[in-house]
């Protein structure tokens, strides 16, 4: 059997194990191991797996996820998250879907501190899901909006994916960061529009509340949001002044929330323990998934499935626009199985020369397009890291219920892509100013 066949059979085997209710992380690791063992040797495959597990668990850039996740649970158990959502509810809760809309804004703001889509989804999810549940929001809408909101975390700078793209293509990371700002805001607005449209047509999905007067709003604001503001200002300010790196911001945020909660005596010993229990469980779940995805990615690398697909796209006798569409389609398909970072590493070296050198697209613009397309992969079934993370936070909700709610947001991303195709300036205008 050729490596390519082994790769394709492995994808099928993975799907079968998935359907047989094997935990996703196990299935990716097991199939990745087995395929690798077949193509090299069992000893080599075991060495690869042992190495991947420890390297990913001890990765500095991934370890930051743990701190952000804990920060989210601390905010939940100390009631700070509740206060935020009470305020948001008083402010825009009378619009249909108001809290889901507020959640998108929260993701965008949080995305300015955190560079990872998974950490954004996990942190905001820990705070937002119980609250939207309280106000009787539709489960599908609530969970999907947080999973999709996580995408804003990598589009709005800082962003791990832009860094990886920048290094793989020798493009300016600074320019890429700036290029992501406007598309990030556009996507947030499209998300908000999507939520507003579906909840206006079916009010029970995001039931509007009574309109609060300004006095109620101010009292909600006084009820302890000052501290949240302080934490936020410290985190943002500290990042911009240069006290700490984005990787360290998670620990600062967790310490800030814990400090406020202790100062206000709003967290019990039990709540503290629960926050740790939930945070460790969620982190372990995410990290085993990432390790599994990496192991599977190693098999994909030596089986050369992504490579063959990419070369196929490059050889098609089509006009530039159509080749671009084929590239995006391939990303969408691969995104169903491969994790975002692994996919960038595997495919950008092949697609970048086609898109930029052959077809003449702008490299910064292409970076934004790739980040958006790859980000689509983290919410599409069957392998959608962000959806898995939401499932980890809300274990009672079946995966398919979350995936069911994803479609409006997926459509929003596709519209965002179309807008960027039609108006590339949206991505290239700001970075053009600094050169």
């Amino acid at each position: 059997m050729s490596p390519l066949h082994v790769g394709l059979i492995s994808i099928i085997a993975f799907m079968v194990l998935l359907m047989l209710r094997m935990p996703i992380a196990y299935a990716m690791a097991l199939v990745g191991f087995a395929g690798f063992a077949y193509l090299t040797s069992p000893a080599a495959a075991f060495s690869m797996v042992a190495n991947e597990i420890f390297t990913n668990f001890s990765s500095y850039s991934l370890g930051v996820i743990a701190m952000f996740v804990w920060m989210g649970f601390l905010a939940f158990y100390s009631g700070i998250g509740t206060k935020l959502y009470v305020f948001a509810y008083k402010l825009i809760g009378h619009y249909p879907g108001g809290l889901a809309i507020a959640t998108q804004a929260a993701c965008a703001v949080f995305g300015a501190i955190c560079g990872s889509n998974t950490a954004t989804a996990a942190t905001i999810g820990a705070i937002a899901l119980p609250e939207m549940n309280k106000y009787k929001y539709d489960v599908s809408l609530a969970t999907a909006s947080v999973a999709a909101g996580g995408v804003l975390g990598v589009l709005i700078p800082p962003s791990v994916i832009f860094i990886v793209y920048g290094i793989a293509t020798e493009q300016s990371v600074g320019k890429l960061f700036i290029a992501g700002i406007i598309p990030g805001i556009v996507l947030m607005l499209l998300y908000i529009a999507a939520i507003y449209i579906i909840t206006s047509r079916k009010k029970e999905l995001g039931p509007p509340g009574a309109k609060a007067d300004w006095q109620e709003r101010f009292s909600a604001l006084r009820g302890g949001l000052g501290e949240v503001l302080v934490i936020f200002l410290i985190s943002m300010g500290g990042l911009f002044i240069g006290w700490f790196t984005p990787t360290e911001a998670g620990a600062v945020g967790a310490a800030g929330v814990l400090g406020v909660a202790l100062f206000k005596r709003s967290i019990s010993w039990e709540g503290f323990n629960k926050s740790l229990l939930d945070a460790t469980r969620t982190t372990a779940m995410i990290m085993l998934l990432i390790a599994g995805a990496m192991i599977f990615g190693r098999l994909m690398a030596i089986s050369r499935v992504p490579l063959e697909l990419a070369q196929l796209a490059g050889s098609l006798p089509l006009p530039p626009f159509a080749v671009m569409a084929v590239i995006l389609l391939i990303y969408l398909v691969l995104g169903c199985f491969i994790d975002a970072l692994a996919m960038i590493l595997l495919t950008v070296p092949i697609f970048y020369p086609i898109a930029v050198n052959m077809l003449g697209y702008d490299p910064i613009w292409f970076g934004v397009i790739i980040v958006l397309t790859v980000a689509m992969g983290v919410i599409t079934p069957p392998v959608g890291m962000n959806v898995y993370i939401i499932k980890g936070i809300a274990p009672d909700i079946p995966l398919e219920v979350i995936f069911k709610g994803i479609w409006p947001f997926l459509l929003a991303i596709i519209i965002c892509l179309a807008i960027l195709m039609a108006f590339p300036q949206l991505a290239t205008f700001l970075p053009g100013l600094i050169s």
Partner: protein
Amino acid sequence: SSGSSPGQAKKQGAVELNLAHFFPATHPAETELIQPWAKAISEATDGQVIIKSNPGETLLKADGIYEGVVNGVADIGLSCFSYTRGRFPVLEAFELPGTTYNNSKVASKVAWEGIKQLNPQEIQDTKLMMVFCTGPGDLFTKIPVNSLEDLQGLGIRATGLSADTLKALGANPVPMPQSDAYEALSKGVVKGNLSTVEVLKGWKHAEVTQYLTRTPFLYNTLFFITMNLDKWNSLSPENQKAIEEVSKEYFEEVAISLWDKQAETALKYAFDEKGMKEIKLSDQEISRWVNLVKPMQDDFVKKMNEKGYQGQQIMDTVKSLADKYNKEYK
């Protein structure tokens, strides 16, 4: 691009070897060294040995590459010895500060010839095909560093041996991965980086630093290209010989000057496009710096002696080769 090199026709019964490295697919290490070298090997072995490159850590992470080659995860690997500290105790001698390397040619010749002379136990578990170096590294900073005094307490990103070096000089080494350094420099979390100037362009550090202090006695990094021993032994003697000849040619013609060429383009970019300022230390200043890092070489000798190696002999080998090649390649 990555993957099977064009022009490599696969023969019946040909051996396919997976090569793993961490450089991006666009990096000269891939485009100017690995790809042409692989193609030349395929031609020299009449299509019987085909090397498929997996750049950008797609097959193995940088610090797992040597071990991965030992265990057969990859057949061939290209990475740095210093990513796995303690694993190659003798080879650390080539990276110790206090030895001046004029350029990457000198550093590469010293390392490869020195390794052949010393033939240390630590590299016997793979077939070492080539060792080449970055050569000297420099300090690039957000504030000018004209003297030791400017360096005192300054937060500089550095890991491993370089962290020890900066500590000895009185700076504040801040270890973080190269991938975090851009953000950290841009926001001023750290005020500089000690590395090869290639990083100015490759990792865009010229966007976030303004001054470049030349320190050709502070830094060196060794890269290896090595093959799984069983895979090597499975090749026919003719193919082994052909591969050794091609590797020798690519070492001399490409590898040893790879970093010099990169330094050249990176400096052009940094000075002309990004307006960075170059700072050259006076001879007197240089000797102050060298005096501060010299004890690290003495420490090395002492530690190696304790472990049962000939510490002084190792250090002397490095020194005499460096003297020899610094004269040859100015």
